């Protein structure tokens, strides 16, 4: 257990060190939203209508660009070997790494959302469904994404490949997440159903993604 927590603590610490990428992902998240706004034009009504999908897409993209950092550096400096020969089950280590990725990106993005939501004219009652959906859905993004990162751990420039592999797998989370945020803002009764499905998707990823990641890592150790 102490090894499990140590992996989380180390990865979070590394993510916030210079070159770790956590702050870049957050900055990228903010920039994507600004670019969307620039593309749409300064129409506040239109903006508040598309705000939830835009924020969700931006969160997904920001997660996507940071996935490469989960396993490739560990493989390049030999620490993946150390993780593989310690800590019991490799799947648990994979779970720890996905949790660390969520803390250093997903949770950070969720925390930044209230401020960025103001830019898109979301406030008050519309904000809570958005935050809740991100809180439930972002762990799923990290979990599924870490699987793609494990698959490509041995490839030097895998960023684009990860995006191609993971995007179709992200579809359910995006649909339920953005759906929940939009439905919640509109007072639609589908809100809770969306949230439940989003939770189920994240839970499913929490169970199967570490197993699949561990299987992939085994073949990326040589």
């Amino acid at each position, binding site marked *: 257990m102490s090894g499990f927590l140590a992996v989380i603590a180390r990865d979070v610490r590394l993510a916030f060190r210079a070159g770790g990428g956590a702050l870049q992902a957050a900055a990228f998240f903010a920039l994507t939203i600004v670019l969307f706004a620039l593309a749409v034009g300064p129409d506040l009504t239109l903006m508040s209508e598309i705000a939830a999908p835009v924020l969700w897409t931006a969160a997904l993209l920001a997660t996507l660009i940071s996935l490469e950092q989960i396993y490739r550096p560990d493989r390049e400096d030999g620490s993946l070997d150390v993780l593989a020969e310690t800590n019991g089950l490799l799947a648990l280590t994979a779970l720890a790494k996905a949790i660390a990725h969520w803390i250093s990106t997903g949770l950070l993005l969720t925390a930044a959302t209230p401020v960025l939501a103001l830019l898109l004219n979301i406030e008050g009652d519309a904000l809570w469904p958005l935050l809740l959906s991100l809180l439930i859905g972002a762990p799923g993004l990290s979990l599924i994404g870490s*699987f793609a990162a494990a*698959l*490509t751990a*041995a*490839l030097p420039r*895998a960023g684009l*490949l990860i995006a*191609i*592999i*993971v*995007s*179709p*797998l992200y*579809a*359910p989370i995006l*649909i*339920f997440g953005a*759906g929940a945020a939009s*439905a919640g803002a509109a007072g639609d009764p*589908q809100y809770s159903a969306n949230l439940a*499905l989003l939770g189920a*998707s994240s839970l*499913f990823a929490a169970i*199967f993604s570490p197993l*699949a990641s561990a*299987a*992939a890592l085994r*073949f*990326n150790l*040589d």
Partner: protein
Amino acid sequence: MATTTLYEFANPVRFERIAARVFPVALAAAGLLGAVGLYFALFNSPADYQQGDTVRIMYVHVPAAWMAMFCYSAMAVSSTAGFIWKHPLADVAAKETAPIGAAFTFLALFTGSLWGKPMWGAWWAWDARLTSVLILFFLYLGYMALWRAVPDKTRAAKLAAILAIVGFVNIPIIKFSVDWWNSLHQPASVLRAGGPSIHPDMLTPLFLMIGAYVFAYVALLLASMRNELTARRLARMENAGVHAPASVVER
């Protein structure tokens, strides 16, 4: 000392013999069924009471959409076989199924778009079925991209197998989520397999076309598997002697 490679544990000789025999038969069957199927589809089946002759696109489109799913399933099954029993032919079958499956998927999307134009007045509508097929197409792309990106082919086979299985497990979830998304945002779709009322006479060309596609798949798969195996054999011959395995000697 003999050059040993992992691929010699399989029996490519027997495969070669069977493939050489089955390939022409499958090709002929595909051509024959396709010709008869198209004849029925174009000249010997009723037009739809709503869609008119446009419905005839269905005979190309629906079997292609089924093949898209069939090929992905075949890929997942042979990936599992390759993963568990380490049979290299299974890995090769999975690898070579992907581009064929992707081609069927593309055909389904293309004909779906053609079919959609008169129905919706647009080349693309975010119909639940078409959207699922589009996502399936991206799943194929990811799988093929992974095969291409990993230089060591034994490792690529393992990793791609894991991806195929994960993708396969996710397909029902993706399908459900897209149906859900579609029902929230749009009224029920017009474009369903067979349409709201399917005339029994429509079934004949439909099944003939499915048969043609399946045989075409078998023929294409065998041809590309033979190519791949030949390429691997060539690479092995080039390396022969240069890379004999080392053994340990006490000094």
